[in-house]
């Protein structure tokens, strides 16, 4: 059988990125978002950005870099750039073991504390919330834990992400099957309704979550987030280099109320990043406590 593909077909389909252009692009990405791109991913970026260059009618990366830095539309382009460099993988009830451990220990402790002091109030921050599955999952956990008592509580889940497109998707609250790949059926049945577009989240669950586009690399923006009892930042700092990790974790520390907790993704750790938190071990997760 002969080949359908021309025997001279080339592997590079895209505009070539010169080594120094790649360094400039990656430094720009890092400076803006804290996301660190290894030099080994040069061709991947070349290929991803080539499509964008085509759309803009630019023929080389030098022009694209100028566009990013000096064009009148540079702010808009930055938004597009963020979409291109982030990975938004997520799902409802991702890492159920961790969530169970969180609900049975960390959340329980906070709820009990608040009940004792009579301040029925809880602030949770989901940093790097992607399309919203994580903050909505947290809202579901709160509904499961507080049940009938919930209306008496003042709960705010502040959910932020770098990507505008993700925040928009999150706000619609409608999801396809893919979002439920880690979700127990009973949770799905209880909190979602079939909708022509997919599955729509229960409005009460939705009402606890406030979405907002935010860059974790913007210290001033982070300072404006209300002080939290709990911060969730899962599968986000894995994309940062050490100095950015330290910076962001430092901001979480400052934001947390005394006695508050930071929760990280399954494969993330503060080992080598921060000594200020106290790791508290539960089967299924480590919770990082700000002692106070």
């Amino acid at each position, binding site marked *: *059988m*002969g*080949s*359908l*593909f021309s*025997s001279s*077909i*080339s*592997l*590079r*389909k895209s505009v070539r990125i010169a080594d120094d252009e790649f360094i400039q692009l990656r430094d720009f990405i890092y400076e803006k978002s804290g996301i660190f791109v*290894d030099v*080994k*991913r040069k*061709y*991947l970026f070349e*290929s991803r950005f080539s499509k964008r260059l085509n759309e803009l009618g630019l023929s080389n990366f030098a022009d694209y870099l100028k566009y990013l830095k000096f064009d009148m539309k540079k702010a808009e382009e930055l938004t597009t750039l963020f979409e291109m460099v982030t*990975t938004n*993988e997520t*799902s409802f009830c991702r*890492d*159920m*073991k961790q969530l169970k451990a969180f609900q049975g220990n960390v959340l329980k402790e906070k709820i009990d504390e608040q009940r004792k002091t009579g301040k029925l109030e809880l602030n949770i921050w989901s940093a790097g919330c992607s399309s919203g599955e994580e903050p909505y999952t947290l809202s579901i956990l709160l509904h499961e834990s507080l049940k009938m008592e919930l209306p008496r509580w003042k709960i705010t889940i502040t959910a932020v992400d770098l990507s505008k497109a993700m925040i928009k998707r999150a706000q619609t609250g409608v999801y396809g099957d*893919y979002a439920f*790949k*880690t979700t127990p059926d009973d949770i799905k049945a209880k909190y979602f309704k079939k909708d022509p577009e997919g599955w729509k989240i229960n409005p009460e669950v939705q009402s606890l979550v406030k979405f907002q586009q935010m860059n974790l690399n913007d210290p001033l923006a982070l300072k404006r987030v209300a002080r939290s009892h709990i911060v969730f930042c899962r599968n986000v700092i*894995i994309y940062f280099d050490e100095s950015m990790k330290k910076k962001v974790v430092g901001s979480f520390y400052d934001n947390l109320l005394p006695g508050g907790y930071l929760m990280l993704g*399954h*494969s*993330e*750790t503060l*080992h*080598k990043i921060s000594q200020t938190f106290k790791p508290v*071990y539960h089967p*299924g997760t*480590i919770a990082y406590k700000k002692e106070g």
Partner: protein
Amino acid sequence: MGIKRLDELTAGTVLASDLKASDGRLLFKADTELEERHIELLKRVGVAEADVKADAGDLSDETVRDIEDYVRDFFLYVDPEFEPSLQMFRIALDLTGSAVASGWVLPDISDRRASDVEHMEDLFLRGMGSPDTIVKHETELASFPDIYFRIKEVLEDESASAERIAKVVSTDMSLAAKLIKLVNSPLYGFPQSIDSISRAVALVGAKELSTLALGISAINYFKDIPPELVDMKSFWRHSITCGIFAKILAGTQIGLSPERFFIAGLLHDVGRLILFKKLPYASTEAMLFARENSIPLVEAERSIMDFCHTDVSQPLLQSWKFPEGLSDMINYHHSPMEFPNPLEPAIIHVADNLTNAVEIAQGGMYVLPGIDVQAWEILGIKADPLLRDAVDQYHEQIDIIMNAFF
């Protein structure tokens, strides 16, 4: 591809099975490439349809473009202008083209994330288990097969006679059976069939056969890994494929014993099995992270666990007292140039990349780990037509060799 009506047949179409007339008379044998005059004949005798092989020529332009984009995505970790990467790309395109023509559907991105990682539990938390402690936990728990050490003993004993070697190997029936199957496979291509171990020792050579036996008994150690942790069949298929390629590549060099390379290829990712046993959740996360971010598995392991499977194979093979040269090939297959004598690991390195390239058309999920330019140059070979020939040989061998093992 399936059944085609007579009016759909064109010159060049190849029959998938014997074509018979309505009265059962054989018209053309399977694999016949039909010519115009054959088709005329079929019309005359009134044959209505034929079972034909897939023909990539049937694909629409759009599908061809989809295939190109799909395959290209696996090559984003290699220099697109580097000749061997280019050759591997073209090979992968052709293989994927014919797979699609035969009915394979290109996987969708949503196939990337398996949903069943949630029940897994790691024995070590991140930052708390180093490669050494992980391996120690393994080797203290389970003992290595006795036969392995007996083979090692004869392998190291220069004065061991062929009979003694044959005798040791024959004590393990299942091992002996595998060896017999293997030496009768196209991996060796002996014209006559070999029915005894002593005959195999005579033909293959004492050292080579014991190396083979050693590798197989090492593999046996992992036979009990539960299938929900890792798809062992595709793991070993990857390993055997790498072994086949490594052996072929070694054959292009002067003075290398090809058996050793088959075994090194067979065990090159053995560290991954330990990771699966000890850190199942993190291992699965690494696989998903690799897919989601289009990075090689070995890089994803480093992001997720701070170390990779070759960091684990190193203490593992050491504790097994695995022959050094073989261990080096395995431990350095992702970084051959870091080894003082890089030729041997470089062969596994290239073979592993080629393996990943042929796996694309089989639903492989991982981008090529990256071909080190210097490592390739040490081999001093030309990619074209060598790589294609190697892939042809692989196609002839893989199923039979898989059969010998499972």
